[in-house]
């Protein structure tokens, strides 16, 4: 179905991004997968076409766009190209909103120009070896010492953790009161700070071109002027931003599943078995018809959610529904599209195998499907 969210400028920007992905990203995916990360210079190139600065205010060299539609276009095009740029995605769709919302004027002038021109890329470190879904249980601490905080702890699974110039670290700054959710703060740790150690680039099942790291903080002295937003108020900040992060994951799920459908269509039209094209079997037609239908439904949901995010009406439960549906759909669609490739689908040289491996994590990160269901069920007044 025709999507009606986009105007002429959106289409022109999409054409630029598509051309960029086809030339500068897709051909390099195997090389970057082998390296376990994308080269840092890539983010300078994406900045040149304006991707990094889309939402950065004009005063700091960005375009000052107050809409998620352009971000959606960027990550759709990455997905359609059967590529993934995890570090950029987390930077733009998950981390930047914290800075846009909570940075004070001094912090803005320190960091925003670098965000716009690609000199600064940021990650966010919430998850710890012992705490994922249960965020309030984190044990990383930051203790006030004069004008600084002394940060201690370990984080893991941090997307972009190797490339990042800045890392927002969620740490406990106080333990008063009964509410476990109180007393968490956001500290911006900079590359090169003493005691900030990047651990291994973790070996993953999929998403091999994005660096995912362990980060260690050993007596890191973080100046108080690097605290983002109100001290102790991080939990509310984290939850208020989750809707956009979950929508971002959904958009990628949908775009990569769409890419899988297109790959399967191309493949079954060419491949001959028993003297016929695979496309000629009724089973193939029905499987692909199911995939196309499910994708249409997921797209309708996502498109509504993008518009709702822009108007500020996307609730946490809404976003959880979208992520649950879109990522489960992605899994089903990509699995069936791989099946139609037969043994070739299992071979790394066929992009469908990459999409299959990449898809597995969308039901885990940004909140697992089970966590989505518990968020949704809380809205049902059970």
């Amino acid at each position: 179905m025709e999507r009606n969210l986009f105007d002429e400028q959106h289409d022109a920007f999409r054409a630029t991004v598509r051309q960029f992905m086809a030339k500068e990203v897709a051909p390099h995916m195997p090389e970057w997968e082998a390296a376990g990360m994308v080269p840092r210079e890539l983010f300078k190139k994406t900045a040149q076409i304006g991707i990094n600065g889309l939402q950065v205010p004009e005063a700091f060299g960005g375009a000052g766009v107050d809409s998620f539609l352009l971000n959606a276009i960027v990550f759709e095009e990455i997905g359609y190209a059967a590529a993934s740029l995890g570090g950029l995605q987390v930077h733009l769709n998950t981390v930047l909103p914290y800075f846009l919302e909570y940075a004070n004027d001094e912090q803005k002038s320190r960091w925003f120009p670098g965000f716009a021109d690609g000199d600064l890329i940021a990650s966010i470190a919430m998850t710890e070896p012992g705490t994922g879904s249960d965020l309030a249980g984190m044990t990383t601490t930051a203790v006030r010492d004069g004008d600084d905080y002394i940060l201690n702890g370990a984080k893991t699974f941090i997307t972009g953790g190797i490339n990042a110039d800045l890392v927002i670290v969620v740490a406990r700054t106080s333990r008063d009161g009964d509410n476990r959710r109180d007393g968490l703060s956001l500290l911006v740790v900079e590359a090169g700070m003493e005691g900030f150690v990047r651990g291994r680039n973790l070996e993953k099942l999929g998403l091999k071109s994005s660096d995912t790291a362990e980060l260690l903080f050993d007596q890191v002295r973080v100046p108080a002027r690097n605290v983002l937003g109100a001290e102790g108020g991080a939990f509310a900040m984290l939850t208020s931003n989750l809707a956009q992060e979950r929508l971002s994951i959904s958009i990628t799920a949908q775009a990569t599943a769409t890419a899988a459908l297109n790959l399967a269509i191309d493949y079954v039209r060419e491949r001959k078995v028993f003297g016929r094209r695979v496309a000629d079997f009724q089973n193939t037609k029905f499987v692909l018809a199911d995939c196309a239908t499910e994708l249409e439904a997921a797209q309708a949901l996502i498109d509504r959610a993008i518009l709702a995010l822009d108007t500020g009406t996307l609730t946490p439960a809404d976003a959880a529904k979208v992520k649950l549906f879109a990522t489960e759909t992605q899994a089903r669609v990509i699995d069936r599209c791989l099946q139609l490739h037969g043994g070739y689908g299992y071979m790394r040289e066929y992009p469908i195998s990459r999409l299959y491996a990449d898809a597995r994590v969308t039901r885990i990160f940004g909140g697992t499907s089970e966590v989505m269901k518990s968020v949704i069920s809380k809205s049902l007044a059970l």
Partner: protein
Amino acid sequence: MTMRIVVCVKYVPDATGDRYFADDLTTDREAVDGLLSELDEYAVEQALQIAEAADDAEITVLTVGPEDAKDALRKALSMGADKALHVEDDALHGTDVLGTSLVLAKAVEHTGYDLVLCGMASTDGGMGVLPAILAERLGVPQMTLLSELAVQDGVVTGRRDGDSASEELRAVLPAVVSVTDQSGEARYPSFKGIMAAKKKPLESLDLSDVGIEEDQVGLENAWTTVLEATKRPARTAGTIVNDEGEGGKQLAAYLADGRFV
């Protein structure tokens, strides 16, 4: 004084899509998406670089083509060109390279120019002679197929890389120059470029505006006629030679039979 650069660009069917022909054997533009010819992006890029190096320059992008050809102009504007000129007229349907060069020459004269830049060929027609014909019609020097160029003090210099030699060329402006795909990658339109392009002037002209009669252009007045167009046959499965001791001979025989050697 402002250096006036005109870049001639063509709106072509997307080369990655299938090609279709209309009943009159012209390209069916309804059937496939169009875009700015990739080879013309190199010319736009060179124009931008020359303008950036100059004290004062203005880039006009010019196309002759149907309504949708405005897309090609908008893309060039979003890359950084200053204004656009679109010659559009129903009578232009089916015009050949002689007619098109006439329209371009008149339009270039109409708008005023010091340097005209073109790509090395269109990605659809692929004739590659338009820049030469255009220079002839304008009565100015031509430097074609350059892989490097620069403009200084009213003189354009450049290098043409041939099979056996590289030539260093120079011409006094006004002149017509075409550039190859070796001249340097074209920039991508940036988001800000796209937003800025919205506000740049895009002027439409018809044949009478540039002083051309209908009987000088169009399919009827083309110097060549397409008699027939046949779709390229589907690729057939290749020949498989099983090596049972005679493989080399069989390969040689295959090559000889097909007159490949």
